[in-house]
């Protein structure tokens, strides 16, 4: 009996050890740093002093994952460094990054729009990048997007913003102000005058923002160097003037919270409107559908320049990455080069972040967006911004639908946001 027992135990122990050994092998799949093991040498010659090995993990959302995979394959071919691209949902990628990094589960690099940056810095999860002289090759807006509080945290590759898209078959001249534009568009007899996508529950402050800034009511005050302060600037007379403008547009039926993104896109595709305020993500589809469109700056409604938000797409490192050198190699010596920026443009179809690459483009639509975005401001990346969206959208719904008196509702909203910011 004892004999059999000990056999059992020995067998169990043996199996366990075998598997443990396998497990140990698995655990060692982190960068194999012994260069001797790699037989294939670097083909691109991008690195000096020997081959690189190891694996970089990159997180990208569904809209960017293909692009990142393509570009990473190239990096692997050039340097021999394996790149594992993990797809994450765009809505959660930033939050997941914040929770994953402290637990050691974070990726080496995250590809994202820049507006989560403030949150990442506040949570201490994003690492810094020293671009050196390369910094000057990026457009100021792109660089501002990846800069927070004077420190650079990533490498930008594209910028995007909204603009006024015109259906040239319906109208060929566009007036300089919003009111004239609405009058002209109404005169065309189409179903809608100007399409600005909305949401019945949350409005769409992003798409209304050029109109808002044309009243001189930006969301946050900017300090001298262009970075945002946490001081809310959309209150006051200008803000109220914009609120009243919204109410008037709502009452006139120009703005309608029920015109969602899908409705607006379908209507424009069907030629039911001559104008639509939208971004490059829709325009490719318009062109594919055979529409003849021009991209123009959004006309002013309140007299000042209409500034859209500029979103900057970039690659950001993990502060805790085990592969700090490889990450830097990838970011500075690969992504931040004109060749790769050009490829990223060809794959993604957004205005490149590098000035030289952007200037080399010959695409009237991208040029249009570039021009409309020239006056734009980077979307605030400060953590306070997340307190703003909810209140902002809800207030705009109430104002556009006429559910609440414009001036009063706007003022309440500003007070609520200020309280929310103060509470954090």
């Amino acid at each position, binding site marked *: 009996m004892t004999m059999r027992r000990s056999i059992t135990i020995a067998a169990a122990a043996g199996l366990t050890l075998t598997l443990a050994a396998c497990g140990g092998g*698995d655990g060692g799949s982190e960068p194999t740093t012994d260069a001797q093991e790699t037989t294939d040498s670097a083909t691109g010659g991008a690195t000096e002093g020997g081959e690189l090995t190891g694996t970089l993990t990159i997180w990208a959302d569904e809209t960017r994952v293909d692009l990142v995979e393509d570009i990473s394959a190239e990096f692997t071919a050039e340097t021999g460094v394996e790149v594992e691209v993990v797809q994450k949902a765009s809505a959660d990628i930033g939050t997941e990054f914040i929770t994953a990094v402290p637990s050691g589960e974070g990726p080496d690099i995250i590809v994202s729009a820049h507006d989560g940056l403030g949150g990442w810095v506040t949570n201490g999860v994003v690492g810094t990048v*020293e671009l050196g002289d390369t910094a000057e090759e990026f457009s100021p807006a792109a660089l501002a997007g990846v800069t927070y509080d004077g420190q650079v945290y990533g490498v930008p590759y594209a910028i995007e913003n909204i603009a006024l898209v015109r259906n040239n078959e319906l109208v060929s001249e566009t007036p300089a102000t919003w009111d004239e534009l609405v009058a002209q568009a109404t005169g065309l007899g189409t179903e809608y005058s100007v399409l600005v996508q909305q949401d019945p*529950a949350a409005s769409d402050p992003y798409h209304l923002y050029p109109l808002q800034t044309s009243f001189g009511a930006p969301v946050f005050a900017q300090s001298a160097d262009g970075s945002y302060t946490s001081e809310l600037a959309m209150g006051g007379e200008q803000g109220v003037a914009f609120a009243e403008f919204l109410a008037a547009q709502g009452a006139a039926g120009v703005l309608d919270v029920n015109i969602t993104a899908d409705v607006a896109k379908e209507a424009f595709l069907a030629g039911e409107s001559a104008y639509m305020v939208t971004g490059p993500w829709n325009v490719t589809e318009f062109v594919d559908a055979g529409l003849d469109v021009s991209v123009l700056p959004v006309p002013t409604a309140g007299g000042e320049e209409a500034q859209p938000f500029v979103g900057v797409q970039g690659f950001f490192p993990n502060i805790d990455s085990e592969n700090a050198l*490889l990450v830097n190699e990838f970011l500075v010596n690969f992504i931040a080069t004109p060749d790769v920026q050009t490829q990223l443009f060809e794959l993604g179809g957004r205005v490149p972040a590098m000035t030289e690459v952007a200037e080399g483009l010959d695409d009237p639509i991208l040029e249009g967006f570039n021009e409309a975005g020239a006056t734009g401001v980077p979307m605030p990346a400060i953590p306070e911004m997340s307190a703003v969206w909810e209140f902002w959208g809800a207030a705009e719904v109430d104002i556009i639908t006429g559910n609440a008196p414009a001036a009063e509702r706007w003022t309440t909203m500003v007070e609520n946001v200020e309280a929310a910011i103060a509470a954090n």
Partner: protein
Amino acid sequence: MSNRDSAPSGTTRRRGASTDVEPRPNESHARKIGPGFLVKLVLVALVDALGVYGVFAASAVGHWGIVAFLVVALVVVNVVYFSRRMIPAKYLVPGLLFLLVYQLFVMLYTGYVSFTNYGDGHNSTKEDAIEAILLQNDRRVEDSPSLPLVVVRDGDALGFAVIEEDGDVAVGTAEQPLEVVDDAVVEDDTIVEVPGYDVLSFAQVVEVQREITDLRVPLSDDPNEGALRTQNGSVGFISRSFYVYDEAADTMTNTDTGAVYRPNDEGNFVNDEGQELTPGWRVAVGLDNYSAMFTDSRISGSFFQVVAWTFAFAGLSVLTTFGVGLFFAIVFNDPRIRGRKVYRSLLILPYAFPGFLAALVWRGMLNERFGFINEVLLGGASVPWLSDEWLARFSVLFVNTWLGFPYMFLICTGALQSIPGDVIESARMDGAGPLRIFRSMTLPLLLVSTAPLLISTFAFNFNNFTLIYMLTGGGPNFPDAPIPVGATDILISMVYSIAFEGGSRDYGLASAMSIMIFIVVGFISYLGFRRTRTLEEI
């Protein structure tokens, strides 16, 4: 595995005693190598292997709690399955382990988080926070040149050797400020040899990449002059940190202003003027999160309104779904109706729809301008189904009824058919009318079997986040509420919007509110089940 083989020894002995026959040998799997034993051996070995792998994986990332749990669990599993006794434990252990992991651990962890300030800005440990502050405030000195650099090693100490702008080669380590050396060998702008140091090859550099990117070689003894660092092992630049951490005093000092930041109770470095450095770290905050629910004016103002609607929503949802379900169950239980099977299958359709999708589809159909309801059914009316406070509440209840009644219909149909016909028959013989029979016979008998389900439906709807989030998003928002909370928000969706949408994420507060909800639901269920027991005594 036949029952006889695994019969507990006690039974055998009793049987042996009563029949006064010599007890048969106490054979069990643990001592007999048969097919069953081999299967068991393989299964337990698999579990052990997975467990050991888990131990390795967890210890690699330093999660000692998990390691301890896995070790204990593995010991327990092996002892239980290779022991001759503990027959009940063999059946209970898997369930108990899963209960521990998926229920108790989650609850305890939620409880733990609710006593901390875990959330935005307090995301990790103090070490991580210090590292982040130092790194975020370490900047390249403006207009400083990029210098060709190699990594060198002197014994254990790593250092940098650079070619300075005037062509001199300087070398230094973290302890030893940069110093010009004379007899270094430079070939093609690359340093190949430094006396007294080993020059690392690129492969060796990659091996210690974390240390190299963390390494700062001071220019001189004065830290304000900055330090040489590199991000790629081949080019160095001069950077300067605006903060210095003093380990002994546990303070952070700003080298520009001289301000000293000390850690406070809330997990931040703070100076005498009250300015905080970000990020902070997680600390225990006691009952702060719990008291915030009632004392924080931003939350408490809407809190009771939301509590009231949560109860109304959950209660009314049970009533409407049960009412409609019961009505149809009774109607289709009547043998005089033809094609009952077809109707019954049709009625169950909404049940087959995923709730997520259904809520989204309804959201579209209830759209004020383009929705099917207004456009087609109401001939182009513009009824603000989702944007008027009371209509939105009505819509939520309506859609939930549509989603939930098939379940009640199924249950009631089953329960109705299990009510013995002769009971109803005798009531009829006694002269009771149909209404009277329903009120005094059918309904009470029905409630005996359905009441527990009604209670769990109440509990489910109390936390019916999906429906609210997908259909109205809690809106329309209260215009004057200082947090993004709306007329149709129930507690759980309010938790969500406070914790994740109302500015910064606050997991501590969200956990505290979840625990409160848990207590409320638990209490209601307890009361409900006590009532059920009295029903069963009918």
